């Protein structure tokens, strides 16, 4: 018998009596202004927030925030950067990026997480290899809790999707928080007002 059949057979013999799957209770919604909550938690988790009124101001806001970034890769239509991040590239070449810019799908006010899909980052490695990361998000794309987020998202719509909540960090040496473990040393979230789409 195959291992698969062995394991399934052992489970069938040993599993407990049926227990019902609970319906998810109506969790209380987040109270307060989502944008304010989102900004506050982002600052708490060592991310920076930049607000712009119009998408045309995103590129200059990032240039001000990161004046010394030489190689700026972009997968966002709002930012030209010094290079487009294209599908055909070898992801290893992205290791020279100082800043990578892409758009997010939605943001979660309770924890500062931003959902980014495969197609938004173009290369899955890009948000991790870059020294700094900027995520562009429309203010209307905020939800309160993770329950709201999963109600809105279809997680298998694309091959990969991720919640990013802050810059890469570690506290593995004596519980001391160090920003910039293996991934980006900073995260800037650009929140824009108008929907230009």
């Amino acid at each position: 018998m195959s291992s698969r059949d062995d394991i399934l057979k052992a489970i069938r013999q040993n599993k407990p009596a049926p227990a019902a799957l609970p319906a998810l209770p109506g969790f209380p919604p987040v109270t307060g202004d989502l944008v304010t909550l989102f900004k506050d938690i982002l600052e708490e988790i060592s991310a920076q927030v930049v607000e712009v009124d119009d998408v045309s101001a995103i590129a200059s806001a990032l240039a001000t925030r990161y004046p010394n970034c030489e190689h700026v890769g972009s997968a966002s239509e709002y930012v030209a950067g010094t290079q487009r991040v294209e599908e055909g590239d070898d992801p290893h070449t992205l290791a020279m990026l100082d800043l990578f810019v892409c758009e997010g799908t939605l943001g979660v006010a309770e924890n500062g997480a931003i959902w980014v899909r495969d197609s938004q980052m173009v290369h899955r490695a890009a948000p991790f290899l870059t020294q700094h990361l900027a995520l562009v998000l429309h203010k209307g794309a905020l939800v309160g809790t993770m329950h709201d987020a999963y109600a809105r998202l279809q997680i298998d719509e694309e091959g990969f999707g991720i919640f990013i909540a802050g810059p890469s960090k570690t506290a593995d040496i004596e519980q001391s928080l160090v920003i910039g473990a293996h991934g980006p040393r900073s995260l800037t979230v650009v929140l824009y007002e108008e929907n230009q789409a």
Partner: protein
Amino acid sequence: MNHPVAAAQFNEDVARTEWHDQALWFVREKRDAAMRQVPEWEILRETASQIKDHVLSRLDDYLIEFEAHAQANDVRVHWARDAVEHNQIVFDILQKHQVTRVVKSKSMLTEECHLNPFLEQRGIEIVDTDLGEWIVQLADEPPSHIVMPAIHFKKEEIGVLFHQKLGTEAGASDPAYLTEAARQHLRARFLAAEAAITGVNFAIAETGGFVVVTNEGNADLGVHLAPVHIACMGIEKLIPRAEHLGVFLRLLARSATGQALSVYTSHFHRPRAGSELHVVIVDNGRSVQLGREAFRTSLKCIRCGACINTCPIYRRSGGHSYGATVPGPIGSILSPGIDPKKHRTLPFASTLCGSCSDVCPVKIDIHKQLFQWRQVLASEGHLAPSKRRAMRLTGWVFARPRTYRVVGRLARWALRRLPRFLIYARWNRWGRARDLPEPPRYSFHDWYLKHRRTP
């Protein structure tokens, strides 16, 4: 491994024991603060607990559903009965691709299966990329904690280790400096890796995908660069639907480190173009544990480590004293199921205070199971002879009221009259670290008899 012996060794350094205790308690306090931010915390715990109970009762169906959806998404699914088969499957995949350099993010399952030495013996270089895991790998030690593998190290010791192994400045112990050194060193490993191995935090039956959580981004750096990704998961990692992720993710990071969410929560459904994605589903004793009525709910564990951080025994004895892949209270109810003889002292490494059960995000009654394991181990004859003799003697006295009263009187007399050096002689293990209580003048039995006679 004998927990009391190893714990006694740990306790010889009083200052260090105190430091370790405080480090863990600090994490417990962060967890408490994060929990208080969520008014519906108890509803979340109850929901999570019920979802996991349901999954265990239909685990076979969900595994089949997961497999079908994963395969439809071009994910290759493998099944392993035990650690040996798991290691062989991983090795075969690596060999097929002629891989010699592997990066691995944190996975307690591969620790449990001792994958690293297995691959190293076959000429494959495997690097643990979580900073804490890399530190213990460089030191040639097992992790001492499931979330914070190097929590037992002082920064000065890590400074010495890095100086020896990486050539960092002698005497340097600044965490930011040491982390930067690790970043530079490991980046080269990420870029050169030919395969990446990760664990799995949650596998979703409905979509055939899985979720991996890290703070450092090391899992993602590995798998998005290497042409082969192998994800290893225990059979118990399943949840039915995507919406259930909301429940578990709200609990996991808050319980583990006091964060509202870990920095990276990655959802894998299909391999990226030109790469392979493998999932190895591992039993390794879990289906047997599923059949143990008293202990099956231990399989609900989501490996947050909250019970470990709160445990007064763990905090004062260190992770290595348990001699098991998963230390602390949850490990002490999982490990005896794998090898009762080897892990016979672990269910006794508890005061049964119940703090572990109080903080568990999926409401496992850990302290009750610790107590039940003691009975199982005793009835199977796994207790140490000294403990067995003491229990037999105590039981014999308790079963004889007259003898009990005489012994009680003798003890009260002895405690009052005998000199200290006799009371605290070698045989008195209880009195080694604390004074015995002042004996009462008479027993409750005497008191009752006296007062009943008065009209």
